[in-house]
């Protein structure tokens, strides 16, 4: 353990020791209340009746908890359909990002074709452009794709293709591939392996951790995204969870909207609890994406 702001020795002695445990207790309690408290309020609030939720002061635990709001949310908002859509978009996003972004990062890192650096710079430059600035021209492009003149509205491609254009992924993957020794690739080439074969049998097996990070970020990006899916998936059959809940929120009782929000949040929370180590390490090694 390296030394930090306050020395270990100081924290072990009388007053310092007492202070440390007091601060720890306050922090653990405070953080639980601040970050878990609202979630508790959300899950139990949706178990209350409409009458009980409007009552002052609010009850800490629902008087007679009922699952009716959750059942109503599931049935009236057709959450099964919305959830399937979101899963489908997320799965496609993972697939296309892995295929196109790893291929591109491999080319930029190991094959290094002519103008590779120019292409990389042009990709990284898009990190500087705020998403809101591009939303209108992107939408105009999606409703009438240049050259082929295809309308992507209500098609999953409208979500998958823009997500491939992710400079952060290219940067992460390229940096990882850069760290794979050139000798390994030269050895494979001597054995007559094609570039595709080298990527598949040597690079990818060594890159599992980074591929995991990219996949998890792809899933959470689709799950959390709101404005773009709202624009390009206008019909009720193709909506994502967040957009569907928002669309219904006007004419639905508050508790049912909250119940739907809880259900919509469950998959990402599970993903987080299972993969928290990968997510946190990916975040800090990337160190760029907030």
């Amino acid at each position, binding site marked *: 353990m390296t030394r930090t702001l306050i020395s270990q020795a100081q924290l072990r002695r009388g007053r310092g020791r007492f202070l440390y445990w007091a601060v720890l207790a306050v922090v653990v309690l405070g953080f639980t209340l601040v970050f878990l408290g609202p979630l508790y309020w959300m899950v139990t609030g949706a178990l209350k009746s409409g009458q009980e939720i409007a009552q002052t*002061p609010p009850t800490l635990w629902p008087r007679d908890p009922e699952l009716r709001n959750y059942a109503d949310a599931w049935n009236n908002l057709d959450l099964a359909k919305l959830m399937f859509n979101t899963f489908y978009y997320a799965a496609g996003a993972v697939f296309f990002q892995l295929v196109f972004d790893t291929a591109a990062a491999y080319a930029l890192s190991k094959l290094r074709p002519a103008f590779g650096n120019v292409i990389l710079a042009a990709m990284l430059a898009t990190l500087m*452009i705020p998403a809101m600035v591009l939303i209108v021209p992107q939408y105009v492009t999606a409703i009438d794709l240049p050259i082929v003149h295809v309308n992507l509205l209500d098609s999953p491609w409208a979500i998958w293709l823009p997500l491939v254009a992710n400079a952060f992924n290219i940067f992460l993957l390229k940096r990882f591939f850069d760290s794979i020794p050139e000798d390994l690739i030269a050895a494979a080439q001597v054995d007559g392996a094609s570039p595709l074969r080298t990527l598949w049998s040597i690079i990818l097996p060594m890159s599992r951790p980074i591929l995991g990070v990219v996949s998890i970020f792809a899933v959470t990006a689709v799950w959390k995204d709101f404005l773009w899916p709202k624009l390009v998936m206008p019909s009720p059959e193709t909506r994502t969870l967040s957009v569907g809940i928002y669309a219904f929120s006007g004419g639905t009782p508050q508790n049912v909207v909250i119940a739907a929000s809880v259900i919509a949040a469950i998959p990402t929370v599970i993903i987080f609890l299972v993969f928290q180590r990968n997510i946190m390490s990916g975040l800090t090694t990337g160190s760029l994406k907030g």
Partner: protein
Amino acid sequence: MTIVAPHITKQPSPPAPVARTKRSRKLRDNLTGHAFLIGAVVCFALFMWFPMIRGIVMSFQRTRRGETTWVGWDNYTRIVADPSFWIAWKNTFVFTLLALVLGYLLPFFVAILLNELRHFKGYLRILVYLPVMLPPASALFLFKYYAYDPSDAGLFNAILKVLHLPTSEWMQSPGMTIPAMVIASTWMNMGGAVLIYLASLQNIPGELYEAAELDGAGVARRIWNVTIPQTRLILALLAMLQIVATMQLFIEPLILANGAGTQDSATSVAYLIYQHGFFQNDLNGAAALGVIMLLVLAAFSAVYVRLTTKQD
């Protein structure tokens, strides 16, 4: 019909000069490289590079009934003349500023605190990052219906009541709208910054603190003279990223304040882009507003680059 050309096929190809094979191999390698790049390049071209240029072009055009004409600065003058334009910029700047005070300083001090604690490390990190994983729409409905309920049944008002503090109307009071959005936004987003700061705090050599302590520096002085200079680069970078992110404020006003909020107290620039583009059938005006936003953010970045390079 018979296709027989034995005199051609049987002829062994003459050995090509070394220079030529080298060049053709180079060409083949280049083609393979670009074949691997093509998927990503097409997506970047369609959804990043082309829209960037198109946004600027669109802002000088007007499309009516399928007919596009050049209109010069018309879109810009129309957008700027809209009374919501200045309100939206004012709201966005106030939000950005408040979010900097709360959402930028708070994660840094939380990270310093967490870095000192030797127990419950994993648990505390998970807690801080948990809201980041929630879909923003879910989290914002929680704030809208339960936390910011203007009656005393709301979570925040109930807490204020227990503490004998004055309660608030939250989103229904124009003065509280932006602070309420800052609180919700900070709760949802601070986890990422905390974890990045924690990683950079762990890279500070312990000897620096040791030396500072021997010189008689207290905790506050050690933070000022060791922690902040040592994490200066990441602090500056996250400040920039935070400004760019908060200036694009959109989903908070949309869900918490139904878009504009009481007396336009929530209207943001990004919300105005959305309004013009998708409700007022004015995609060209929205594109012009997007270009203005890009220029403002570019100005911020320029100032940032100047400040950070000056210090080095």
